[in-house]
């Protein structure tokens, strides 16, 4: 190894050895494509000759999921359904509260048959009563039934500018304002000794750690409502690792820049932005939850709930600005950007949640937030270590615990 020097590229990799010989002297691209070509051939033979036709044992079971329901008016119920099974299903009848009721299927190409993975809306003209549960059952052509209970129905708000405005105001109050207020601790944090600054950073890590668990549990809970074919739990796992690795890759790239002598890349501002992005993704998911609750008519945003959200989110402010407490103070523009990145996604999430809600989107966004937050916690620990501090000092551990505890207590006020 040591006898040969190789040029390292900026991403830390090394160039491949040109001299490695190919079998039978074939060009490199042939050996790259050969397995793919053979796979296509085998699949083709399998598809045309059906060698396992006699092996099939019985019919695969039909599986239909009602992902969510909307109630656009008090005369209409809309079920959003997805066929999860391997075979087509035909929705022949619909029962509402154990009575056959008329309906029409929209979005399934004009018929009542759903191909595997196909989604459609079942529109039922039914004069429902607010607050009175509805039990709806889909009767398939083979007599199988799939039940869904609409608990305490209330009218979906539908699309309107005033709804977007309302959600923007809510987002402003529960997201942007608390984060901005929390950031006003910056001058005070700046005057702290290293020891206390590190404690504040670990406090922030505790806040984020709580959010990771909070959002993680919620993501898996929501994943249960994701249609089976989309593998909700694995989607959440993918979202968490995807975000974690993506942010980690950005971070590694930054280190490469630092090594190359880019001074801006070495400042705490980078970490501050990473923290803001992580919190922003979390707040996006929070906004989704608010927006979808609105869409499902499930929200009573009383003063108590808004106050709870504000207390909860105000702790996110210092988490964003603590990394830039040392060194040169960033320009005000950076502060504004940090605040917007961390807080404003509540508004965006609210809009998405109210307009295009689905459990799949909700679970995925929550998972992304978890991954991003986990990476940021990692980053904060390294920041403390790089500054010569000890991550696991008594003060720091207690500060982390305090972060968890404060989030737990303030979370009690936020029961959506």
């Amino acid at each position, binding site marked *: 190894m040591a006898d040969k020097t190789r040029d390292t590229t900026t991403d830390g990799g090394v160039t491949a050895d040109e001299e490695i010989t190919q079998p039978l002297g074939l060009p490199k691209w042939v050996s790259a494509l050969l397995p793919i070509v053979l796979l296509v051939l085998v699949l083709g033979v399998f598809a045309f000759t059906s060698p396992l036709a006699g092996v099939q044992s019985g019919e695969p079971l039909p599986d239909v999921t009602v992902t969510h329901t909307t109630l656009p008016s*008090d005369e209409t119920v809309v079920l959003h359904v997805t066929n999860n099974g391997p075979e087509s299903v035909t929705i022949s009848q619909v029962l509402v509260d*154990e*009575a056959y009721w008329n309906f029409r299927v929209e979005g399934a190409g004009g018929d009542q048959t759903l191909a595997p993975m196909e989604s459609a809306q079942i529109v039922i003209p039914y*004069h429902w009563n607010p*607050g*009175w549960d*509805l*039990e709806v059952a889909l009767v398939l052509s083979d007599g199988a039934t799939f039940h869904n209970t609409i608990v*305490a129905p209330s009218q979906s708000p539908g699309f309107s500018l005033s709804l977007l405005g309302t959600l923007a105001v809510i987002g402003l109050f529960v997201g942007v304002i608390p984060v901005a207020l929390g950031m006003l601790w910056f001058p005070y944090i700046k005057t702290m000794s290293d020891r206390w600054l590190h404690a504040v950073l670990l406090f922030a890590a505790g806040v984020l750690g709580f959010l990771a668990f909070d959002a993680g549990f919620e993501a898996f809970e929501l994943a249960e409502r994701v249609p089976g074919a989309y593998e909700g739990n694995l989607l959440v796992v993918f979202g968490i690792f995807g975000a974690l690795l993506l942010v980690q890759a950005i971070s590694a790239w930054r280190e490469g820049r630092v090594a190359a002598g880019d001074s801006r890349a070495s400042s705490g501002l980078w970490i501050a932005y990473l923290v803001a992005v992580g919190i922003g993704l979390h707040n996006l998911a929070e906004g989704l939850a608010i927006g979808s609750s609105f869409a499902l008519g499930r929200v009573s945003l009383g003063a108590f709930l808004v106050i709870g959200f504000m207390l909860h989110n105000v702790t996110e402010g210092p988490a964003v600005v603590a990394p830039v407490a040392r060194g040169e103070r960033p320009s005000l523009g950076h502060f504004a950007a940090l605040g917007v990145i961390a807080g404003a996604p509540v508004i965006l999430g609210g809009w998405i949640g109210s307009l295009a809600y689905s459990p799949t989107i909700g679970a995925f966004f929550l998972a992304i937030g978890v991954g991003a937050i986990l990476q940021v916690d990692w980053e904060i620990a390294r920041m403390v270590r790089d500054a010569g501090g000890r991550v696991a000092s008594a003060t720091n551990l207690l500060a982390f615990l305090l972060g968890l505890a404060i989030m737990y207590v303030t979370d009690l006020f936020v*029961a959506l």
Partner: protein
Amino acid sequence: MPSIDYDSAADVTKRLEERLVESLTGETSVSRRTVLGGLGVAGSAAVGLGSSRASASSDHDDEDEHGNFGAVGEYRDLDFDPHEFLTAFNTGDSGQDNVPQQVYEENGRTVREFEFTAVDTTIAIAPGVEFQAWAYNGQVPGPTIRAVEGDLIRVKFTNLGRHAHTIHPHLKNLNPRMDGIPQNGPGVLDTGESFTYEWIAQPAGTHFYHCHSLPLKEHIHRGLYGTIIVDPDPERVRENPREYVNYPGPITDDFREQLVEEAKSRNHEYAENDAVNEMVMVMNSFDTNFDGGNEVYAANTRAFGYGVGDTDGNGNWTAGETKRPIQINKNQRQRVYLSNATEFDLINSFHTHSQFFDYYDHGTTLTPTNKTVDTIMQCQAQRGIIEIDYSDHEPGLYMFHAHQSEFAELGWMSFFEVV
């Protein structure tokens, strides 16, 4: 010696009541409370039940002494009095204040005219437990209509509820426009719409009316039902006695007279009718948690409404007592116009303690269809007349209830107090 002494009767009623309310609070306090909180249903239930528990614990000593679970409070909603309802007959001549009515002649026929409305309201079905109901003239069961065979019943109906409603009578109705179903005549009446139904009062008997809008289960079990009593016309009975008996043998003059006398005792326009104490009971039930099963059962809406409260045993009730037995005079003949509006369950039943009675299914005959029985059952919309004689019995409390024990323990448990 009364069949049941007061202490143990009160004890049983309270214990059953406690169990019913416990089961309801259990259901409302989990996730339903958060969901329904905005509607105030669970909220008011929780408040009512909370306060009754507090009062139960305050007289804990008393409980121990008698082995009680403790009272669970009184009905606070005094708009509906199940005791008044028992004998509230609307004949056109006289009736309830909330049922505008008149009687007049038209083309040689007596017309009994009533104004009905359908409204959305809230009713008390157990102490502290409210139910969002749809109701004719604001009450569940709806007003009892009473006419004489051959009269014209004219009902000016206005729908003031948020859902579409009708009135469908279980009478022999010769005009399909008047059948009160979505497919005929005016169809369902939307909010604010009106229609005048006209029905010939026939055949004699006790009948049922209800809303026939869809979904039927919802429209019936929310409270849109009531009783129509058609009194037999003694003159018509004299002319056509065979129409009033399920009996193929010869009709002697004595038998004819006996049927005419029976018809007079059934007809509110005859003095013979005054000798009989007549009561209307509708067996009903309520699904409070939307699971397609009932949480509360009763005769005339209120769980344990005719149960035993606090009494001195001589018919003197503690002021404000809302649950008390039906007091009856032992020397008077008792007649119950019974019908079954219970939804979700296949049948309901009526059982008397220490007593046998005669049952006239649908009330369309003047001789009993079941003689000397102590239990009868009815499917939904089935009805009949029960005739009871307590003249042999000692004064005291006599239980009557559904003999589905489940229904009895969920509220359909009542007492006659014979004095």
